């Protein structure tokens, strides 16, 4: 029951581990933000596995971007709502 290739989760953990030195040198507040980015990539690990991309880190970066953009969309929607309810507040 062995595997020839590492699973996508192993791949993800290896990628994350390879940034350990980078992370260590960051400020604590930046470390938290970096960890958040990895958490958001982790949410799409199934899709990353299905993509079977030769360079999985590209997919992880895209997944981080995707989660960031979802946040932007959400904030934009909330702002629009606010502007609609209280026009001239800005």
């Amino acid at each position, binding site marked *: 029951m062995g595997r020839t290739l590492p*699973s996508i989760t192993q791949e993800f953990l290896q990628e994350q581990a390879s940034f350990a030195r980078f992370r260590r040198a960051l400020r604590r507040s930046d470390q938290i933000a970096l960890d958040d980015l990895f958490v958001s990539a982790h949410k799409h690990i199934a899709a990353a596995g299905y993509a079977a991309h030769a360079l999985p880190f590209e997919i992880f970066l895209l997944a981080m971007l995707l989660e960031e953009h979802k946040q932007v969309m959400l904030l934009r929607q909330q702002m629009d709502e606010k502007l609609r309810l209280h026009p001239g507040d800005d």
Partner: protein
Amino acid sequence: MTELTGWLLDVYAGEQGLTIWLLGEDGERRCLRQTFPVTFYVASPAGERADGRAPDLRSAWRWLSSQPEPLHLARTERRDLFAGAIPVLSIQVQRPGDLPGLFRRFSTVFPNLTFYDADLPISLRYAAVFGVFALCHCRVEVQGNQIKTITALDSPWDLDPEYPPLRTLGLEPDCNPAHAEPKGVIFSYSGYRYRLPLEPVRGLLANLNAILRMYNPDLILTNWGDTWLLPKLLELSKDSPLLLNRDPSALITRKEQRTYYAYGQVIYRGAQVHLAGRWHIDTCNAVMYHDYGLDGIFELARVTGLPIQTVARVSPGTGISSMQIMTALRQGILVPWHKQQAEAPKNLLELVHADMGGMVYQPTVGLHSNVAEVDFVSMYPSIMAHFNISPETVVLGEYHPQTGLPITRAERGLVPETLQPLLEKRIAIKSQLLMLPKWDPRRKRYKAAVSAHKWLLVTCFGYLGYKNARFGRIESHEAVTAYGREILLRAKEAAEDLGFEVLHLYVDGMWIKKPGSVTVADFQPLLDEIVTRTGLPIGLDGVYRWVAFLPSRVDARIPVANRYFGVFQSGEIKVRGIELRRHDTPDFIKELQQQMLEILAKAPDAEHVSDLLPEVQALVRHRLADLKRGRVPPEKLIVRQTLSRELDAYRSPSQAAVAARQLAEHDKNLRPGQVVRFLYTLGKPGVRAWDVPGELDNRTIDVGRYSTLLEHAAETIFQPFLSGGIWIRLPLLSDLFYPNRTPVLQE
């Protein structure tokens, strides 16, 4: 010539031909004989030379002609599953009992030949020719005790076969021999139950022999019979014969204990004692006995064609490969002694695309209401049957990453051919189970059958890619997972097209919700749509009143697959991946989690769950107080862990290994794969094996450690009902914890 009807009990090779035990409809147990020559084949691995001669087969022929066994040699052509028709030397052995010995010598002298049909169980050969199997209802014509013809009156695929009234003798030592030295044996048969002491030996043996002679049981059902009781009885009866075998001319077969590694687990199988003419089943050494019992063993024997005593002790993998061998024998396909198909070369990108498992999505963590769980019915076997996936139907060299490898539909493959009737029977029994009332006596047998089938079907997929499977090829294994991913994605797309939100996907199941969809009928259009898009049967497992998907223990922001608990609309609780489901969790902790869930299950809907949290919290406080005041019986604190290696092989011994070493000091040696039971104790070494002799001092129990376990288990259940999303360690007993807030329902 006399005609008899009855049930087949056993078939094995005797001195001349075969010995067949028949339980007649008249209640008579008959020992019959039949001549049954068996054939195996050899091929030259290099094939024939250009001049049509195969030199190594010629010398094999010469060697075989000089052997003492009566043989019939011939040159013929047979079909290899992969290579098609090939020239072979056929060796017909007149007495089936001669084959194993002859083959052993033959394969040592000619190790380079390719052997076929050489090591098949005799019961499979017999079943392939006559269509009869253990417990088959059949009609035989006999002359003297010689069988002339035998005909099956039922088939393995009958839902309600008629079973004979069996006589069962129960035997068990008066305690578990792994824990203490037994002093007596408990007999139970036809309504009697009594205990006889092991000493004096003569009385015990005389009594046992009398029962064996007078009651003459068909089945000896024991506890620890393989590993302790029968070997012990045989040792005690060295001077006077013990009538354990019904067939006095046959020997008792014994097999050594062994440990092996399968499906990520170390598995231990005890030694075995097989009887001739009646069956011996050790409930402690039988595979999955706790799961499907005798009914399951009988069902497995019927569908696989293996003898009862064998099928009770082998893994489901052996069962499914026996079914494949039977299909091959019936279709005249050669069964290789060793597997020959190596993996075809792939480039890296192809490997990256092919070497993937099932689709597992991260769930949306939190509490959700009105969630439906839909599951594909036996997904992987259905895929194999529906898309004709079999080692020989996979076209190599043409690669298509999205749908897996191309499959030839020209001929029905060996694996789909084997699976089809099993799948149909499973679905027929499952639909019967849905309709039968709760009191119906057939339910128990149906449930056992469904459970036994399940394991056959599960392992069938694994065996496609298993390195030792006779009919395996990794590409067909990869094709199944590729189709599986495709199908799950199609199901996801169907759900999203119909406006459902997909909360979780797990290999063959999907959790979905949509505002307004509450009843079973609300989800039916989606089920129909999925069947249209995938062609595979899908069922609704149920609709949850509420279900909570849990995050990782390590990082609460990260969701993990298959870790959830919830309550169906029927009130049934379903739990996966939490402490309650783990084998090593002490009963005390399991019971607590179960009770917590039972309280929460009383809520009519998700909105009212929070009303019950104070009650749950009170329960946790009570249990914690019980623990601290020593009111929990020590046996409920036992931790059970499986040893993963030999004791000497541990570099830093686990707690299980430390406990096992304590046992070893008292001459109780456990093997890898066996379970060791222990308690957490204060001071060094921190554990105490449960089975070491001597009184346990309750004051040495490490209450602090058990409290931590308890708090963790309670947190797991509370977690989804607390706001904020991010979990912080909360002091369980402080008022801060009092969950006087509304749960956060995920919209």
